[in-house]
């Protein structure tokens, strides 16, 4: 078991090394892309800084809470985009039959699909995430490690949601755009100050569109720690991940393998 885990970790790092090599082959200016991504993110943050500077707070949220939200969501998204983005290509892999390549290896097909794409520029999201953490004012080692942990939970949430929407492609044709739009809608909800959602909206925010697990709950864990919040977040994220994985393997039984010309 431990030996298998070590092997899969080694393979993971080897694939990441290859992804970095591919990124540099594609652009040659990968570092510039990272910086541009960071600037792009920070310009969005600047807009919120102006709003909070003028308004003071929104339902109890100040710029500090907003900075923590950006820290968590950027780190979660960076982890997804750098290490598991391949799942968003599932509809395309299904349409052109290139899913075949991932089904005939001795490794888990889901693992192979997940690591099949990485966007190097998203290192800029990590950079933004860390900058925002330090700007939040909640700077301590314990808060830092807790932020890393809830960011990882956020990654699991993003991964599970994206996997579920990608797997619709096993049941209907051409769902790439639908999946992209649903995922973007979720991220948009997750990047708003959670305090604006109250009453029924809050329930919706923590159930059907679970963006609250990327904003409200992590920020609450970092500002006012309660073990129950951490347990709730972990429980929800792992439950969704379990459902997503089962859904993938259920859908795989319906895979028909296309024959469109193409390359990996």
């Amino acid at each position, binding site marked *: 078991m431990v030996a298998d885990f070590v092997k899969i970790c080694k393979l993971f790092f080897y694939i990441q090394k290859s992804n970095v090599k*591919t990124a540099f082959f594609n652009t040659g200016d990968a570092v510039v892309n990272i910086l541009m991504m960071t600037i792009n993110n920070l310009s969005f943050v600047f807009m919120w800084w102006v709003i909070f500077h003028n308004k003071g707070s929104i339902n109890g949220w100040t710029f500090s809470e907003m900075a923590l939200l950006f820290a968590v969501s950027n780190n979660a998204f960076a982890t997804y985009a750098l290490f598991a983005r391949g799942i968003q290509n599932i509809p395309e892999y299904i349409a052109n039959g290139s899913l075949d390549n991932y089904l005939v290896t001795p490794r888990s097909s889901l693992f192979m699909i997940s690591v099949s794409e990485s966007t190097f520029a998203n290192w800029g999201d990590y950079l933004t995430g860390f900058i925002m953490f330090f700007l939040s004012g909640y700077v301590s080692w314990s808060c830092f490690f807790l932020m890393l942990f809830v960011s990882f939970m956020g990654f699991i949430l993003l991964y599970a949601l994206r996997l579920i929407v990608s797997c619709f492609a096993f049941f209907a044709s051409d769902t790439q755009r639908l999946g992209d739009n649903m995922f973007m809608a979720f991220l948009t909800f997750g990047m708003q100050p959670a305090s604006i959602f109250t009453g029924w909206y809050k329930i919706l925010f923590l159930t059907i569109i679970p963006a609250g697990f990327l904003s409200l709950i992590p920020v609450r864990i970092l500002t006012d720690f309660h073990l129950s919040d951490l347990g709730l977040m972990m429980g929800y994220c792992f439950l969704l991940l379990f459902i997503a994985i089962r859904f993938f393997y259920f859908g795989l039984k319906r895979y*028909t393998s296309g024959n469109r010309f193409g390359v990996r």
Partner: protein
Amino acid sequence: MTDIIKVEQLCKKFKIKKDSSGLKSFFKPEYKTVNAVDKISFSIKKGERVAFIGPNGAGKSTTIKMLSSILYPTSGHAEVFGLIPWENRRTLSKHIGTVFGQRSQLWYNLPVQDSFNLLGKIYDLDEIKFKRRLSKLVKLFEIRDLLSHPTCSLSLGQRMRCEIVASLIHNPEILFLDEPTIGLDVTAKEIIRTLIKKQALEEETTLLLTSHDTDDMEKVCDRVIIINKGKLIFNDSIQALKDSYLSKKYIEVTTEDGEKIRQEINTHQIPIKKAIDDLVKRYHVSDITVENPPMEEIIKEIYKRD
């Protein structure tokens, strides 16, 4: 010799939407069921080189995909290396290699050598054994000069040689080749056929090859399975195929004036000797050749009869 692949009554049905345009089909879609593979049974022994021939949509690729664990069947049974493919995907993948002519298993922007290294890690191969194996395959498929090139810069023929090496890196006992010569020019096709056969003979690899090109079958394989509309219609040696369906011969006569006359003879109606005698009597013959119809024509004849 033991059977390495066993297929019994294997079926695969696809549900296809009838008309996907219009609002009606959105709210009330209608489907039709297509029998892509319809109760086929056959077996393949270790070391055999078998061609899987059929027209477009005959079910060749679907069968190969079920045997290589990619697709689940609708019904029936199959065993590859004693394993049910769709239930033992990961274990089976260590024993089989796959080449899909229409898509690549190499990383598009990486040098070929890096793709091979990555595959070595994916198959968890011992470093020394991997290097030895790769060196042997590189020599056999003559790709040493291509190793440092990214896949995207290779010609189709070069890429196909690298694809085959990639599928053989883990030393599989069975190699599934789905249209390995598709899109290649005549010279590249010839090179690929020679190399595939050479490797299979050297390492006793069992081959199952699908193709539209009957030359692939004649030049690489010793046995042929023909399917049409999902049903198996022929399963025997290539020689038996020729013997069963060769009722036609072509006689080409060159006269002393340099004129060429070509005649088609049905040997079931006129013995070949009589046909030649008639031609010799009628013309001043300077040269005469007797040819079998090309394999392409024999296959067409089988499809027509089916």
